[in-house]
């Protein structure tokens, strides 16, 4: 059953109210600005790398609950991960998003991000959920962590 409650899960609204890692860090290795041109939502994302090549993400943005919460969840999820781990997570999440509700996602891998599975039934919102994720991928490309 598709309904508003299944789309806007508590967890999503919690992240929207209290976003994690919001506020841009000072010395990123890559910095990107992404916009969803159909609605004007924006995200700025800074990528950091520690001495052990583990990622850190800080961000700022304006947008709907889905895009903001999704970026918040993402920033928490990839913290301390290697870039190849992060890429795996991004790909798994993208797959869930394009599944039209048929894939719910592996909670081991995706953590809180599985709460967004319902979004994939609303084609117009998939871009919202992916906004921060595509920004991170872009930042990793820029930093030449992936190609």
């Amino acid at each position, binding site marked *: 059953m598709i309904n508003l409650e299944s789309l806007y899960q508590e967890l999503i609204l919690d992240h929207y109210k209290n976003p994690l890692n919001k506020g841009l860090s000072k010395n990123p290795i890559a910095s990107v600005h992404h916009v969803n041109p*159909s609605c004007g939502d924006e995200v700025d994302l800074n990528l950091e790398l520690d001495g052990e090549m583990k990622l850190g993400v800080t961000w700022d943005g304006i947008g*709907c*609950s889905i895009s903001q919460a999704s970026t918040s969840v993402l920033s928490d999820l990839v913290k301390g991960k290697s870039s190849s781990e992060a890429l795996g997570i991004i790909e798994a999440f993208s797959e869930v998003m394009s599944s039209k509700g048929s894939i719910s996602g592996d909670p081991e891998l995706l953590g809180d991000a599985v709460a967004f599975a319902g979004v994939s039934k609303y084609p117009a919102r998939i871009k919202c959920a992916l906004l921060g994720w595509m920004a991170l991928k872009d930042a990793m490309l820029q930093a030449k962590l992936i190609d």
Partner: protein
Amino acid sequence: MISDSMALDVAKIKRDFPLLSRTVRHELPLVYLDSGATSQKPLAVIDAESNFYRNHNSAVHRGAHLIAEEATDIYEGARAKIAHFIGADDVDEVIFTKSATESLNLLAYSFGQSESSSAISLKLGDSIVVSELEHHANLIPWQELAKRTGASLRWFPSTEDGRLDLSGLEQIIDVSTKVVAITHQSNVTGAISPVSKILERARNVGAITVLDACQSVPHFPTDVKTLGVDFIAFSGHKMVGPTGIGLLWGRKELFERLSPFLFGGSMVTSVSMTEATYATAPRRFEAGVPNMAGAAGLSAAVDYLESIGMESIHNHELALTEYALTQLQAISGLTLIGPKNSVDRGAVFSFTLDGIHPHDVGQALDDRGIAVRTGHHCAWPLMKKFGITGTTRATFYLYNSLEDVDRLVEGIHHTQDFFGARGIS
């Protein structure tokens, strides 16, 4: 009771539009409040297109055979109908394009050509005037024209109420001004532009005037002669007509001195391998096999609108506007982006809700069967002016009732409750 003053029998009209009887999420009846993006189509329009294909489909102006003659009659008949609908003297002043967007780009490209015989030719030092309320379709083509020619772009700002601020009229339109391209009615705020003042000033400095009539021609009687404008552009799909057909009306003497835009079949007077000469309007601007079924459908759309009466449609929307303005402004936490009264204003309602993003508002309304649009509505600069990323927009048309306003208001309350209960807003 307000409903007494309604000029139209909405229940009857709704039955003419097949889509309006469908249900959406949770089997709810649809409340369609997105006519500003595209209108629904009455059965008469759908049937006119299908009748064209079943009985008269053939390339116009081309065949020596009976069906080609019939197709040509239908196509040219549609042109005559549009001309009459907008009060044009001459059928040849009506050009079929694919959309208002193409119509406006046609002008911007043609104005950029510098044939010696041109009606207009822009250069460094010239200016083009638009407004902060423009839809991207009546903004970006002019930005690009300015870039190509070295002309500068100027604009009327928006007032706090989302109307055109004409206080700088004499400075903004001056002797350097060659083109003034203005929206007739804002698709975001619903404000109807004070065109007579602008056009008068433009005429005084000898500028060519263009109206983006996308949101006016479908909604109230529009007469190009009374307006005294040089060109108007609008789209079939917003006036209960088919998709893929747009209109450009212009004064004949100007069309004669305007370079063609798209080049190809049926727009020439002679062609050799190295050069071609071009026909006069309308052919000049209609290269290729046109959207003939679209023209057939558009003709039926005009018949439909005329059978209801543009004056009645206007009055009906005015009644809706008055009711909606009262009801919406009574909602706490709602900010209306646009004029707060019904003077020179269409039934377009953009608003924001405290603490809830427009996209989330749209989604919650959709869940109740209410179709609205959210985002920047292709008027991004206006959003920036108001310091927002977008609005939720409800737009009304002849098939909407006061009850639809009530459903919207209910939906907004429900949206506030839903997110409020979850600590948002």
